[in-house]
């Protein structure tokens, strides 16, 4: 059998029923098990059975934990698995952490991989619940779950990834209409990245970000380094190819532009970046996913980086503390090139050490795929 992208195309046994399945099948034809399901940072259902505070207290009476996760004796919320979730799929890895100052983790991430005739694909979605909306933790989870499912299906079918990204964010938005209730519309940001053999397709709304972290940053970005040209919804996605720098390797750069007041002030030349980030409007987002969001204008862009590096998709709980691409590259690389999970842990620890004011989510995808 001809080897494609270095891997055999022979059949392999299904992990569930051991029947042979095609190497890039999505589902086992015999037992129906999904062969490489997406992984979402929901944590395991239910809660830990014991309150750690009362267990450690010799005077505390014995008591259980309520279905909502509160100790029946002291009332404290017991830690939830979702407070710290690590996912390692080999091709990519990510960590979502509650941080130090929030009572729950309202970030969510979803990771998936797929093997297609054209090569492997890695998918990452990061959503950050808007704290001022009701049930933001439900929003981010619902959005990430809906989007990763659509992106994985599209990757398996070999669909155009830009169009698939737009479909995915629209499905995420529809999922949020379903979770809206009498208490209001849960809302979140959205950032997705689909990494294939030669390119990275990024889609975003809000202020969660995607960064390209180069294996080696050689000096300042060359002149003519293209700024992002976000895709207008009516323009065909294929036109939104961003010409990356013509240097031998693409230097570290921010691939997305926040939908935030601060970013708009900077873009219009009214404020310097430093002043804008220090202003109270720094985190006021101008676009979000939610049943109450006005017209959806997601941004889509495709990149073809030259040279090895790592794609980082993250929530503002990380970039608030360090936002310059070369600085992030300095922290995450070279470790991320071979051990993306360990590198994600470094980033999360850095953010917590710096104060942990917000939930922190970081997903790293070494590029080109499968070289680690």
């Amino acid at each position, binding site marked *: 059998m001809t080897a494609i992208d270095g891997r055999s195309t022979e059949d392999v046994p299904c992990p569930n029923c051991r029947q042979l399945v095609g190497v890039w099948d999505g589902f086992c034809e015999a037992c129906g098990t999904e062969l490489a399901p997406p992984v979402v940072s929901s944590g395991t259902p239910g809660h830990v059975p014991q309150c750690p505070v009362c267990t450690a207290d010799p005077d505390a009476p014995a008591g259980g934990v309520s279905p909502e996760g509160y100790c029946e004796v002291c009332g404290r*919320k017991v830690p939830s698995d979702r407070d710290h979730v690590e996912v390692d799929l080999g091709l990519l890895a990510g960590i979502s952490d509650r941080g130090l100052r929030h009572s729950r983790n309202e970030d969510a991430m979803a990771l998936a991989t797929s093997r297609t005739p054209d090569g492997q694909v890695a998918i990452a979605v990061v959503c950050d619940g808007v704290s001022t909306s009701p049930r933001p933790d439900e929003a981010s989870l619902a959005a990430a779950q809906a989007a990763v499912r659509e992106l994985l299906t599209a990757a398996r079918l070999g669909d155009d990834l830009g169009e698939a990204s737009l479909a995915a964010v629209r499905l995420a938005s529809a999922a949020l209409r379903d979770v809206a209730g*009498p208490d209001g519309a849960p809302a979140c940001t959205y950032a997705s990245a689909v990494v294939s053999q030669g390119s990275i397709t990024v889609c975003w709304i809000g202020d969660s970000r995607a960064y390209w972290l180069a294996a080696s940053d050689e000096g300042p970005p060359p002149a003519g380094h293209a700024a992002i040209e976000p895709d207008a919804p009516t323009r065909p996605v294929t036109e939104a190819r961003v010409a990356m720098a013509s240097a031998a390797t693409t230097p570290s750069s921010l691939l997305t532009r926040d939908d935030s007041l601060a970013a708009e002030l900077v873009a219009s030349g009214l404020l310097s970046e430093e002043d804008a980030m220090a202003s109270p409007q720094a985190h006021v987002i101008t676009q979000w996913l939610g049943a109450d969001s006005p017209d959806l204008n997601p941004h889509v862009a495709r990149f073809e980086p030259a040279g090895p590096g790592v794609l980082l998709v993250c929530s503002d709980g990380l970039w608030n503390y360090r936002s310059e691409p070369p600085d992030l590259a300095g922290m995450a690389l070279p470790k991320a090139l071979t051990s993306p999970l360990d590198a994600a842990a470094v980033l999360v620890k850095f953010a917590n050490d710096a104060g942990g004011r917000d939930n922190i989510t970081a997903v790293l995808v070494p590029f080109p795929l499968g070289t680690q």
Partner: protein
Amino acid sequence: MTQPAFTVDVDHNQYLPEGGRDVSAIATVISDGTPAAANSEPGVGSAEIIIVDCSGSMDVPQTKMAQARAATAAAVDVVRDGVWFAVIAGTSFAKPVYPAAGGMAVASPQTRAEAKRAVNGLRAGGGTAIGKWLQLAYQTFGTTPATLRHAILLTDGRNQHETPEELASAVSLCEGSFTCDCRGVGTDWEVGELRKVSTALLGSVDIVPDPAGLAADFEAMMRTAMSKQVADVALRVWTPQQAEVRFVKQVAPTVGDLTDRRAATSPQVGDYPTGAWGPGESRDYHVGIRVAPGFVGQEMLAARISLVVSSPGGPQVLGQGLVRATWTDDEALSTKINSRVAHYTGQAELASVIQEGLEARKQGDEDTATARLGRAVVLAKESGNEDTARLLAKVVDVVDEATGTVRLKKKVADEDEMALDTRSTKTVRVRKEQA
């Protein structure tokens, strides 16, 4: 009959600053059961008693007694087939009117007609000892297996032939056994006296200044009673170990303090009596909890609020609302005041300053009366409580509504003063804002 379900909807600002301890929440409880069956089964039934004052003053004027008879007959007509009922005449002792031998009858066209004939024979003459009337009602209810027990009590004067202790003791006996709505006709009775009965027996108290208004009032009370479906419902409040319930108050449709009526079922759980509920009924409660202080990023359950109904198989817990506390260093979150909590706090204050002001006026303390009733005017305006504002305007001249500058009227009709007193507990409801 199916047991109704209760929903508990909690509205509050869950955010506390670092070290904060006080959590305040409004719990809206709605009973959403299906309407009761037309025929109650004998084992799980309703029972109604109408207690009519037959003291000598009821004949002054004679129309008063006549209207009381007519009102009682009107209420009897509303009693549904299958419901137990009885009529009691009250003087310085209590006497069964129907059934004449005591006990209760099952309502039917025939028994209702018999009862009305017996009521027609009511005559005024004698004293007033309300405690004795309540005791007879208690014994009468005890002759049936009915669980939904309600009484209407009518008086026209003071409880002259009993000591306050005797009345209090009778009230204590009856507490938890049946609910009682009290009405005073005319202006010679004592609001405070009757309010002690209605509060303890989880009912309403009101003035009917003109006897001609009795029939409509009695009919309305009996219709409300017929709509009740579940008896002896308690509001159950669970708190964590180191927390303390500071208060539990009903705040809509009327204000009433339940804090001292707590029955502790365990160190962390207390039940507060709320009487009987009918389908579609909705009441708001204001609950205040003090918790152990927390640090930023911590979350705790400050209280769990549910409803408890006793049933043959044991107490049933229906509905649940959670009161959460989350500590944050975001001042924008922790300093926000929940508008419904603020509103109901104002309504509760409105009721108490009215009662304090009227009491001060009776004692001749004009300065206190003016200050309290002035504050009442401000609160009534701020909360849009127009009914109370109108009642206040009959007792004080309002100089400046915004600052609460008022002057006590020199002449206030007794019935206006008493109407303000009895209706001071009626609140204006606020709904949760749609986000």
